[in-house]
């Protein structure tokens, strides 16, 4: 039974995607996507009831499956190389060839490793990733249905390219599930390369020059990541003759051994997670249609990177490699938060904030204590839901207004109240106690007590994040009255937004229990440490919520006072009557402090520091 669930989780999305390609009608496509959402949700919940488990389902453990995985190690780089040659992109060619060479070395130069104990291994971490990919990913796919319709109307395409789009989108979810559950490194690497391919195709979907450029940038960076991953895996194979992830992630194995293989895999993870200095590919990804960026940022792709780090985290506890990884994560948290603060482009804000929060999770992984890992997984889940929500909201507002600049979204509350409020709530969910993102940040700060530098960077990054999100939320709500306005959205747009909003707030509130669930048995009482503080804070928050809404209800019936503009009277909203009876229009804008948070300068500075840390990560493992 459970094997069937796993099969569905991995292969159903691919099958449904292929069916989308065959049945080109929009009705059939909607039905297929909705069905995929239902199947994935059922499968993920079914899996959740059986966790933790270790299995050897025939379709993943047989020799054929391993052969396919080995073939994939050649096929994916070969395709990347082909793309590199076609687009005459030197870096893609370089890294794809390196990957091919490594694959050849692994196939012919090394003895075949012992097969993994379990082809499928699902613990709290893997389950978290499966739930995120299946539930959040499905919601984003459903949101994509009306969005892509409007998107193509806007582009005036002759033949719809939606079938291919949904094939890749859905297949991506299946690959993510496979990646989360794979217990064998070779299978894992195949799925890993699969996500690189999907992201390349999705980013380049619009086929504009900018899209192509961004897609190739994502490709070369992730090819480089893939190269590091393969190198790490091969080294580990050479060192231990092992291919099981579970065996590799046990600290006992590494006692006294060099951590170089792990360091290489961690660098690959940092590339996937768009850590500094590799954040460029994630920023480029925003040229793609919104569902793609939502998917890449929240539930797939970047989560692969943090998943790998968290998977290996038990080995890192107390090691130099772990300490340097903590510093690298904290540096990204700080640098990307500062970069986010200087942006007015709403999607760039989201992108930098994604990199920042993933840095926080990676810092947790570097610390490697069970408490830190549990905090990291909580952050992974809640970040996925919250960021998914924010991306969908920004995408919807962008389609309404025709701009993704925060200044153009000012006061959008009047135009699309539902989306704007959901976006504001999502932004505040990123920073407010007692919700999960803050609880995770707090737990990370207390867990990082072995590394003062990391703590200080987290402290500064945290303040930057608060300012960034309050400004974001305040700009959307800026000075507009509560008023009934017709919402344009179809149920397929507002449904996923509302579901994600409920998820972001609900899961945010449930963070302590989520945390208790993830902590290994015997780690004290379920709400140990400071997490026990959170439930009373929820009660307070709920009371404040009720009191606030009552006042909101009362105040929204009152007429508003005329704005105070130095006593000058107002003829029309947003203006004042000044000298000579002239009507002056008021205009406003946020202060982005470019001299402090300028993108070019900060990127160079933080990038150089991050490169130094990653070099130290590899170098520190060498010595």
């Amino acid at each position, binding site marked *: 039974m459970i094997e069937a669930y796993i099969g569905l989780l991995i292969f159903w999305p691919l099958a449904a995607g292929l069916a989308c390609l065959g049945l080109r009608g929009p009705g059939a496509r909607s039905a297929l996507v909705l069905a995929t959402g239902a199947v994935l949700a059922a499968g993920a919940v079914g899996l959740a009831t059986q966790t933790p488990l270790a299995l050897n389902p025939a379709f993943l453990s047989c020799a054929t499956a391993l052969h396919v995985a080995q073939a994939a190690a050649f096929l994916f780089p070969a395709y990347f190389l082909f793309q590199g040659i076609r687009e005459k992109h030197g870096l893609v060619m370089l890294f794809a060839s390196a990957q091919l060479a490594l694959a050849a070395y692994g196939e012919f130069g090394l003895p075949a490793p012992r097969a993994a104990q379990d082809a499928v291994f699902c613990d709290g971490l893997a389950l978290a990733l499966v739930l995120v990919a299946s539930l959040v990913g499905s919601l984003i796919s459903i949101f994509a249905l009306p969005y892509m319709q409007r998107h193509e109307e806007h582009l005036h395409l002759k033949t719809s390219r939606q079938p291919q789009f949904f094939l890749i989108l859905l297949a991506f979810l299946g690959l993510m599930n496979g990646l989360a559950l794979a217990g064998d490194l070779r299978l894992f690497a195949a799925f890993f390369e699969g996500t690189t391919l999907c992201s390349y195709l999705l980013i380049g979907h619009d086929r504009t020059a900018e899209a192509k450029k961004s897609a190739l940038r994502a490709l070369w960076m992730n090819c480089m990541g893939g190269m590091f991953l393969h190198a790490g895996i091969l080294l580990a194979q050479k060192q231990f003759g092992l291919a099981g992830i579970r065996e590799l992630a046990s600290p006992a194995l590494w006692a006294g051994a060099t951590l170089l293989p792990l360091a290489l895999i961690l660098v690959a993870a940092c590339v996937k997670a768009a850590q500094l200095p590799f954040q460029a590919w994630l920023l480029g990804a925003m040229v793609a249609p919104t569902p793609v960026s939502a998917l890449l940022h929240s539930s797939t792709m970047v989560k692969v990177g943090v998943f790998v780090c968290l998977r290996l985290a038990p080995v890192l506890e107390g090691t130099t490699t772990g300490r340097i990884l903590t510093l690298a994560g904290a540096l990204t948290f700080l640098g990307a938060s500062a970069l986010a603060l200087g942006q007015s482009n709403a999607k760039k804000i989201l992108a930098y904030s994604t990199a920042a929060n993933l840095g926080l999770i990676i810092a947790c992984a570097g610390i490697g204590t069970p408490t830190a890992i549990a905090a990291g997984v909580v952050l992974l889940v809640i970040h996925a839901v919250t960021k998914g929500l924010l991306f969908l909201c920004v995408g919807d507002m962008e389609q309404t207004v025709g701009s993704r600049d925060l200044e153009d979204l000012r006061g959008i509350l009047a135009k699309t109240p539902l989306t704007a409020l959901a976006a504001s709530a999502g932004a505040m969910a990123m920073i407010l106690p007692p919700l999960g993102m803050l609880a995770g940040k707090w737990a990370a700060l207390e867990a990082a007590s072995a590394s003062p530098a990391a703590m200080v960077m987290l402290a500064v990054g945290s303040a930057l994040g608060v300012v960034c999100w309050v400004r974001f939320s305040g700009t959307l709500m800026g000075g507009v009255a509560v008023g009934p306005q017709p919402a344009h959205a179809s149920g397929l747009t507002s449904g996923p937004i509302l579901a994600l909003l409920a998820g972001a707030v609900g899961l945010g509130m449930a963070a302590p229990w989520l945390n208790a669930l993830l902590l290994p048995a015997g780690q004290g009482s379920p709400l140990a440490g400071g997490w026990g503080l959170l439930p009373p804070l929820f009660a307070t928050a709920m009371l404040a919520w009720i009191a606030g809404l009552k006042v909101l209800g009362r105040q929204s019936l009152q007429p508003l*006072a*005329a704005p*105070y503009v130095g*006593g*000058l*009277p107002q003829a029309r909203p947003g203006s004042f*009557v000044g000298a000579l009876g002239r009507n002056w229009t008021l205009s406003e804008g946020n202060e982005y402090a470019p001299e402090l948070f300028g993108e070019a300068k900060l990127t160079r500075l933080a990038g150089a520091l991050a490169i130094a840390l990653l070099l130290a990560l590899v170098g520190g493992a060498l010595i």
Partner: protein
Amino acid sequence: MFGSFLRASQVKSPWLLHFDCGSCNGCDIETLACLTPVYDVERFGVINVGNPRHADVLVVTGTVNPRNAAVLKNLYDQMPTPKLVIAVGACGCSGGVFREAPNVLGGIDKVIPVDVYVPGCPAKPEAIMDAVVTGLGKLKAILEASK
């Protein structure tokens, strides 16, 4: 007890908004002199605020003309209720020597209701302080009548 505290505090914390409607600055200087150590009007809880939304007492100096009448009215409207208005100086009370000038409407009471008039050219700081206290007495009487 809480209710009586609230009522008592209504007359113990007059926050002043000072608006120069077109004064020669003589009365303004005298008004600001109230804040100096010599007179120290903060003894009575008085604060000079710059925002009508926080003010209880509007202190106006100078004559009203068609240009600033709208601003005066606007400031008065933006103050919370209950509110007091004090017209300071001969010009504020009646238009003073400018009463018949073509661009002058007259005293403050041509535009908004005035509670206390402070005569003088310029008005003395003691008189202005006395006006605030008189105004608060008026407010107290109103509050007690409405109890």
